[in-house]
């Protein structure tokens, strides 16, 4: 069997497992939905597999984050299909999905280690490339341990938003997409919408979001929530009641308030909506490490000009295309060495 076929089989094996038992902190339905989204993205774009972007690394260490349990799958598949030996450094907070991944890709040379961050640096020995995900501090620590010869693509904290035309006639579809973006992974990870900016009146969007959030909560119930989220949740809802409007249901909220109160940290299953007179008011976002933007605007260029690495339809925020650049970085090429054939 060729490596691409073996990779596809490994992806399918991992996708056939029950993610509900992996202690991801998500609900059983939420974990399975995230698992399916990750697997489908690869199976829908299998042509990406086995296509090198240069000379692939012999051994790649993937430093996994603990909050988005599917994150390593696409990179493991991509590099395993090219013959790279993939070493996965799993988070001690959520090791099971990565352990399962290593088992399913074992025939392709993958293996996993569950170690605390500071005890895992020896895994870098012998690796010619490192792909890292985590906090800025963790990535800085990782960077300091790498030799100049080790290729690296390290991805620290990023934040995503949504920018919506509130006068659109298809607000129900937009709302359903945004609700699913907020529901998948319960607001964890760089591709969760931290806030929704709405051009024009927010009223219709807020009205459309409330039933969409309720539907999403029924389909994908919210998972575990840290007790410390409680006061932040009540503060945010309270601020919305004082300065705008707040609609709350069982484990979800839509909080509308002036853009002056925008925050870059998403809360699990809360969508904060801020009115916007023009895109010019988004200028403060340029100071943030932007990732993706969900939008129903026809012209997405101004969002890219603000610094977003990716603009997509609502509902696709958490479903990035397999083989895309990550945070604007072509990971495959970055971690591969190039031979000039000319």
């Amino acid at each position: 069997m060729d490596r691409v076929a073996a990779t596809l089989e490994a992806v399918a094996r991992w996708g056939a497992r029950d993610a509900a038992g992996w202690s991801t902190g998500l609900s059983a339905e939420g974990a399975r939905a995230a698992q399916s989204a990750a697997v489908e993205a690869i199976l829908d774009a299998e042509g990406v597999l086995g296509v090198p972007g240069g000379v692939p690394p012999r051994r790649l260490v993937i430093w996994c984050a603990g909050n988005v349990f599917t994150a390593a799958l696409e990179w493991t598949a991509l590099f395993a299909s090219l013959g790279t030996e993939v070493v996965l450094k799993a988070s001690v907070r959520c090791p099971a999905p990565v352990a399962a991944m290593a088992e399913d890709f074992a025939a392709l040379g993958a293996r996993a280690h569950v170690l605390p961050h500071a005890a895992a640096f020896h895994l870098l020995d012998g690796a010619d490339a490192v792909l890292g995900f985590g906090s800025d501090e963790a990535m800085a620590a990782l960077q300091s341990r790498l030799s100049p010869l080790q290729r690296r693509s390290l991805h620290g904290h990023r934040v995503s938003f949504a920018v919506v035309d509130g006068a659109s006639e298809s607000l129900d579809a937009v709302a359903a997409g945004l609700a699913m973006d907020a529901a998948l992974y319960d607001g964890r990870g760089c591709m969760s919408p931290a806030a929704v900016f709405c051009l024009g009146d927010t009223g219709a969007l807020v009205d459309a979001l409330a039933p969409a959030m309720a539907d999403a909560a029924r389909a994908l119930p919210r998972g575990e929530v840290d007790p410390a989220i409680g006061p932040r949740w009540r503060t945010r809802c309270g601020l919305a009641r004082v300065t705008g409007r707040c609609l709350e249901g069982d484990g979800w909220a839509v909080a509308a308030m002036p853009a002056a109160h925008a925050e870059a940290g998403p809360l699990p299953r809360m969508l904060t909506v801020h009115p916007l007179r023009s895109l010019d008011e988004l200028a403060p976002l340029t100071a943030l490490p932007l990732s993706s933007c969900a939008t129903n605007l026809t012209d997405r260029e101004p969002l890219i000009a603000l610094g977003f690495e990716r603009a997509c339809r609502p509902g696709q925020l958490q479903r990035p295309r397999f083989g895309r650049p990550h945070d604007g970085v072509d990971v495959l090429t970055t971690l591969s060495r190039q031979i000039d054939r000319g």
Partner: protein
Amino acid sequence: MSSASLEAARVRALSAVNVRLTASERDRAALDLYQWQREAVPAYGRFAAGARPARLEDIPAVPVALFRDVRFCASAAPQAVYRTSGTTTGRRGAHWMPDPSVYEAAALRWFQACLPGCPVGNTVSLVTPPQTHPDSSLGHMVAHFAPDARWFFDPARGVDLGGAWAALIAAREPVFLAGTAFALADLFDLTDLRAALPAGSVVMVTGGFKGRHTELDGPALQRAIPERLGPGAAAVGEYGMTELSSQLWDTGDGFRAPPWLYVYTVDPLTGTPVEGEGLLRFVDLANWGSALAIETQDLGTVTRSGSDVPGDRVHLSGRLTGAPPRGCSLTVEESRETAWTG
């Protein structure tokens, strides 16, 4: 709000901050005050969103963090504002008061009830002086207790060690030494000096060590007080915050709440009242001109003093720790010594 209504509410509050107030009188007054604040404090009315509480636990409690963004005040021309230090977030909360008379009366009456005979005439203060920082509620309180206090602290320069120790060493009459835990730790950490305070001296310790590093933790500070200031110095604890007009005093068996202050605990995540340890909420009749019910970020338990007997006691157990960082957070904090290889 008309000035007559405002004055009537102030007079009612002044009468309520009475050490002989019974629990049933307090409850009635609190529910009446809530009804008044819903109309008189526009921001609180919007926050409360039409709630009709039947008991004190149902009065909508404002999370203290909301004081950073919202002005809760019954008067358009408040005569006093006190601000938080802002050390946690860099943004300062503000408690606006129509006038400080009820705050001052409440503070003084409960202080005198808990610490009768406290030698305020000979006060050495290690808290922020109100002369230079009029928005410090703690400084205002100490100045109100002790108009002739000597001040040996400046936020920019820290403790005036020479001046403070000289005053303590020279004391021939009982002293009231008022300080934050951090200032007192500096007083003891940064010199080897000792004093023998006369019997009857009182050392007020307030505040914790959040976000600060010191050699002395809380218990060590309690031990250091008699060691460094002599057996004549009795340590008492003060619990207060900018957003709360009343204070609690600990003279040996937990922090005693004044009879016009109702304390209860809630589940941090849901905000539902709980028995035993939880997030502390206060219903404070002295917060007559702002928001009578607030939710703190402190954890503790409450011991009831009995039916219609004032003086519930609060036992603090720390601050609610922050939730894990959102976004692509990972592993710097991952220090568990578990390891797994697969």
